[in-house]
């Protein structure tokens, strides 16, 4: 590694740029008072995440991320916000007590320090470079799913069906 930016300057710049946007947007998700804004900031985080997946050579996961998260889950969230919006007088989110926020921030900070220590304290971890050729094609991923992981894949289908039926039964008006 010759410079601060490492061997591949463009990829590193892209990483830091997207990472900065993601962290800023994630902080807004958990701090903003407006629930709709939080959902839109969540979209920024999720799209950035797809960008990181492309940098890591996981094209299929990036496409799935965009389709499932940005296309479906965020829309579900917006419906959830819309259907629970009619607050009588006060927004319960506005009056989070300072004690709750301080405790949450403290716990999150401790957790970050512990995880950072584990990551940088592990021997050889901080010099590990990802391989330059790391693109894994959709064909390879599908081969893996439909051979080694066929049974878990079917289990996931059943889980999704169960969740679908469960959500309908729960939310149905009788």
């Amino acid at each position, binding site marked *: 590694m010759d410079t601060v930016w490492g061997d591949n300057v463009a990829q590193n710049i892209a990483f830091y740029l997207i990472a900065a946007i993601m962290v800023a947007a994630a902080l807004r998700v958990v701090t903003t008072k407006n629930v709709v804004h939080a959902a839109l900031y969540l979209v920024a985080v999720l799209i950035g995440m797809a960008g990181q997946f492309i940098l890591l050579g996981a094209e299929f996961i990036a496409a799935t991320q965009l389709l499932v998260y940005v296309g479906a889950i965020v829309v579900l969230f917006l419906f959830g916000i819309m259907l629970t919006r009619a607050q009588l007088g006060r927004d319960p989110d506005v009056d*989070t007590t300072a004690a709750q926020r301080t405790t949450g921030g403290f716990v999150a900070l401790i957790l970050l320090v512990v995880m950072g220590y584990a990551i940088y304290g592990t021997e050889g*971890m901080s010099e590990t470079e990802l391989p330059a050729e790391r693109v894994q094609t959709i064909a390879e991923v599908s081969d893996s799913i439909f051979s080694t992981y066929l049974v878990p894949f079917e289990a996931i289908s059943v889980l999704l069906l169960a969740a679908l039926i469960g959500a309908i039964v729960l939310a149905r008006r009788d």
Partner: protein
Amino acid sequence: MLLTNFLMLSSILFCIGVYGVLARRNAVMVLMSIELILNAVNINLIAFSALHRDLSGQVFALFIIAVAAAEVGVGLAMVLLIYRNRSSIDLDDVDMLKG
């Protein structure tokens, strides 16, 4: 590309999500923070999948995405049910099981 960059980004997003779960009282916001946590884990899986040139990480990330979709569907249905019964989605109000 250093591996630790991705691991640190994942840790930071995870901790932001933990903060959201602990400090928010709106049930929909807590669900959003849980999505943040689940997504942060995916970066780890994909990064190690790229490092070892092993596809298992990617397959597990796909499974996590599917489980997250199922979780948010059921979770939002439950939030709607709570809202319909109690006209509030403040999680501090949902304490009927408290002894």
